[in-house]
Structures are given as structure tokens and as C-alpha cells.
């Protein structure tokens, strides 16, 4: 092999293409930073106390806030978790500990498909399932929509973390006379609990920003929404409505709401990763 191999032209192509891949990465990062930076700038400058404590001011007037939407989003997430988390946990346990063969395959595959259903279609589904029979929009319907959307990720992440628990731990439990279910609840789940919690928190963060399924389930509300049976405002829908409105005051509030929503999501996602890291540390001494 001669010293000049590869030829100069190949070397140039090599450097050029490698540089190009670096540029691609830079471009994506730049877009990311621009989005976050712009949102931070616009959002933070539009924030004030009233934003958190007041309900929206009448059209065209300044002032007011989105207190009702913040409360609405929290209520929706609480309801969604109440539906999505138990089903996801149970399904995850079933897949990792009991299911075998075709039933495991079918459920796993269906779960992945359900996860890929466009959120707007999920909105239609819950509209026909809940809103039509009830004849009106409600927090209930919105929570059910988000709850159903939570199931696939809660289920699959629970399954993955349970599967990662080594067989030796399960055998350790069985060998001490624990039944399979005792082993699951006293050894396998505790061993995987940090991962499971992380998965669920990320799952909540993911549905917290969903807008489309709320448009025709929770709908929206200019006022506080008492109880669970009335339409409710939510942060994502408020962002949407305000952003496409013609009023500058509302645009400001859309930015502020976007900022609050995204900060919330990022905080959840960072905290949950810390939970996972702490869990790793605990179980490795």
C-alpha cells in the first residue's frame, strides 16, 4: 500500500463530508437554542403576577391572566394520570411477568400502534366516546383523552424497567418461599421503581403539551371550571387560541403561557432524570 493512498481527491471529499455532518449537527442545535432562547425572551418578558392569579380579561382589554388554564391543565393531568398510570402499570406488569407468546406480542404491537395514533384522532375518538353521549365538553372528557394517550408509554416503559430487573433477584425471592406475585410486588417492582417513576413523569410531561385532543373534549373556558363535568381551559389550548387571535395582548399571553408550559415540562423531565440517577446510585451502593 503506497503512502499516498488514499488519493488527495478522496481526502478532500473525506474532510468536506465530515465537516458537512458537523454543520448539520450545528444547524439542529442552533435551531434548538433559537427556539428555547426566543421563547425564554418573549415569555419571561410577558410574565407577571396577574398571569398566574387572574382569569382572562374581556376581549381587547389588557391585564388578566390564565389562572383558569393552569388549574385546568393540572386537573386534566391529574385525571389523565388516574386513568393512564394504573392501566399502564398493570399492563406493564402483565407483559413483563405473565404474558408469553402471541398474547405478549399482540399487546406489545398494539400498544406501539396506539402510541402512534395521531393525537387529533384520539380527540375524535374521545369525542364520540364521551362527549357525544354526555352532550357537552368537559374536564372529564379531556382527562380521558390524555389518560388514554398516556397508557402506551406508561405501559411500555414499566415493562422495560421490570424486564431489566435480573432474573437472579426474582429467583432470590422465590427461593425464600415467596410466591411469584409476592416476588413481583416486594422485589421486582421496588428494584425498578425509580425507572418506573421516571417513565411516568416523562409520560405526564409528554401529554401535558397535547393540544389537539383537548380541542374537542375539554374545549376551553374563559372562566374557572368547577368540578369535572364542565368545559375547561388548559394551557396548550390557550396558547393556540391566543396565538391565532388578532390581539397583541393575547399574543403576549400566549408567549408567557408557552414559556410556563415548556418550563414545567423541562423541569419534570430534568427532575425525573435525577430520580433515575438517584435510583441507580442507591442500588449500586
Amino acid at each position, binding site marked *: 500500500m503506497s503512502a499516498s493512498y488514499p488519493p488527495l481527491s478522496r481526502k478532500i471529499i473525506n474532510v468536506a463530508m465530515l465537516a458537512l455532518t458537523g454543520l*448539520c449537527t450545528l444547524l439542529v442545535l442552533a435551531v434548538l437554542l433559537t427556539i428555547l432562547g426566543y*421563547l425564554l425572551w418573549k415569555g419571561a418578558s410577558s410574565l407577571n403576577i396577574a398571569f398566574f392569579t387572574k382569569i382572562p380579561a374581556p376581549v381587547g382589554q389588557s391585564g388578566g391572566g390564565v389562572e383558569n388554564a393552569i388549574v385546568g391543565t393540572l386537573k386534566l393531568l391529574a385525571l389523565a394520570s388516574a386513568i393512564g398510570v394504573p392501566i399502564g*402499570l398493570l399492563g406493564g406488569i402483565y407483559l413483563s411477568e405473565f*404474558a408469553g407468546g402471541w398474547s405478549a406480542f399482540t*399487546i406489545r404491537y398494539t400498544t*406501539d400502534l396506539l402510541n402512534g395514533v395521531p393525537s387529533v*384522532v384520539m380527540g375524535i*375518538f374521545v369525542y*364520540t366516546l364521551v362527549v357525544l353521549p354526555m352532550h357537552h365538553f368537559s374536564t372529564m372528557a379531556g382527562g380521558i383523552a390524555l389518560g388514554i394517550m398516556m397508557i402506551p408509554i406508561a405501559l411500555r416503559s414499566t415493562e422495560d424497567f421490570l424486564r431489566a430487573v435480573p432474573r437472579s433477584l426474582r429467583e432470590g425471592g422465590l427461593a425464600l418461599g415467596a410466591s411469584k406475585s409476592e416476588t413481583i410486588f416486594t422485589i421486582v417492582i421496588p428494584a425498578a421503581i425509580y425507572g418506573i417513576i421516571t417513565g411516568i413523569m416523562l409520560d405526564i410531561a409528554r401529554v401535558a403539551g397535547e393540544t389537539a385532543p383537548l380541542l374537542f373534549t375539554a374545549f376551553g373556558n374563559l372562566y374557572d371550571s368547577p368540578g369535572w363535568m364542565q368545559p375547561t381551559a388548559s394551557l396548550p389550548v390557550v396558547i393556540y387560541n391566543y*396565538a391565532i387571535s388578532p390581539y397583541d395582548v393575547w399574543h403576549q399571553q400566549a408567549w408567557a403561557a408557552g414559556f410556563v408550559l415548556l418550563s414545567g415540562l423541562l423541569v419534570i423531565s430534568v427532575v425525573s432524570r435525577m430520580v433515575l440517577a438517584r435510583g441507580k446510585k442507591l442500588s449500586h451502593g
Partner: protein
Amino acid sequence: MANTVLATPEVPFESRGLDKKQTWWERLRKGDEVVHLITLAGGWSILVITGLLVQHLWVYSRLSRHAFGWHFLVDSTWDPVNGVFGAWPFVYGTVVTSLLALAISIPIGLGAAIFLAELAPRKLSNALTFLIELLAAVPSVIYGLIGIFLLIPVLFNVVPYFQKYFGWLPIFNGTFYGVSYFSASIVLSIMVVPFIISISREVLISVPVSQREAMMALGATKWDVTWRAVVPYARQGIMGSIFLSLARALGETMAVTMVIGNVAQVSTSLMAPGYTIAAVIANEFTEATGDLYLHALIELGLVLFVVTMIFNALARLLMLTMKGHEVVG
């Protein structure tokens, strides 16, 4: 053989209550059937929900399906007032924006994935990937917000120059109003690029060293090795990531609704406003008066469902077969 008889136990063998009768309480506590059944209900609820979903989409779109049949997909008149529904403008808009978005994000995403998998030190690569995956966590309504207030103003400044030189091409001509197929495609491409990067990076990383070594030994450059040995080996996984992104782009609602203009027309120019299936559902669903209108919108949902499911299934299949590949390789 002397002495092959073992003695009787000094302490008679009692087996420590081993053969005591089981109480119902012990049976319940030790019984796995109850837990099995309860978790089974959790697992099967997925099938029930999915079944209900399909059934509802089917039943609640029947009026429209019966009235328009397959013409629904290719007729371009969408006239709620007169009860005539043809979805072609939406189908067209959905396909155009998704494909354009992929055309933008595939090269960039693949480039970045190659950089992150092959060039960047692993630590840096992991940190950058974490950041890029944050992009995937940003809700679509926020992309819409950025699209309206940041992207479109920028495009207003850029597009006229572009049109000065390329305006003769039919896909670039016409007045630019900001909201357009083009704007929607750019937003979509930003939204799907994290998927392409993170999945492709993973499959590239998992390509066995042996694949590289053979070419490296021949004195090939780093790029040659990557492009001719590593990428072809990982192409199934990469295709999988692309199909997944396509499914996402097709079904994406809010961000597109906010920047595409929502005009039910079919234009050759990418600079013209348009409409997509998801956007029309989001916009008109709560205003749909009359059952036929509602059913037409739900039929659009059904179409979207079927198409995204097909691409999702393809993506999963590709990635499944790739996993088998890994085991063999």
C-alpha cells in the same frame, strides 16, 4: 455390602408443617392467579381501547362513507353549506407538506446522526443527543407559536430573494403570504428531525466494529468507511426512523394548523397557503353542523388513522427485523 442401611431419624421427620392444610388466606396470599388476572385486564385494555377506537371511527364516519365512497379522497370540493365533501385538498396538503418536511430533515438528520455516532467523542455525543431529544419534548403548539411569530417573519424577508432567482419554477411562484405549505414543511421538519437523529444514531452506533475494520484495513478514509460500510449496514434502522417520522408528520396537527393558512385549495406552488387533514379536523370539528359534516370530518380522521398506522407498522417491522439482524451479526 455391609451396612448399606441408613438409620431411622432420631427426630421423626415432621417436615415442619409442610403438609398442613393450606388456609384460604394463605392460598389467596400465595396465589398468583388473582394478580395474573388483574394485570391481564390492564394489558388487554389496550386491545379493547384500540378496538373501540377503530369501531368508533368506522361507525361515526358511515354517513360520509356511504354518501361519497372512494370519491371522498379525490374530489376537491369541500362545501359544508351544500353538504358536498371532497378531501383532495387536504390529502394533497398533507402529502406535500410531509414529503417536503422529510426532504429537508432526512439529509440534515442523517448528517447529524453520522456526526454524533462516528465523529463526536461519546460523551459530547450523548450530551448533544440529550439536547436534541429535548426538541422532541417541545409541544407542537409551541412550534406553532414559534412558526407564527418567528419563522414566518423571517421567511417574509428571505422568500422574495429566493423567488427572484427561482420564481420561474412553478413550485416557487406566486405571492407569498407567509402561511404556506413551505412554512408548514419547515416547522414539520424541525419537529421530526430529532426522531431521525436519535434513532439513526443508535443504529449507527450498534453497527459492529467488524464492518468498519474490513474497509479501514484497505486504507479507506473515514468518510468512505462510514458511507459505504456503516450506513448501508444500518439502512434498515434508518428507514425505520424515516417511516416513523413520516407517520408523525402526516398526523401532526397544531403546528401545521397555525402556519399553513387553512385554505382548502390545491396549488402547485409551495409558497401558497393550503390545508391538511389534521388541520381541517382541528379547525372545523367543533363547528361542524349536521351529521354528514361531522361524519366527513371523522372519515378524515379514519383516513389519517389508517395511513399513520401503515407507516408506523412498517417502521416497527423494519426495526424488528433489524433487531434480528443484530442478534445474528
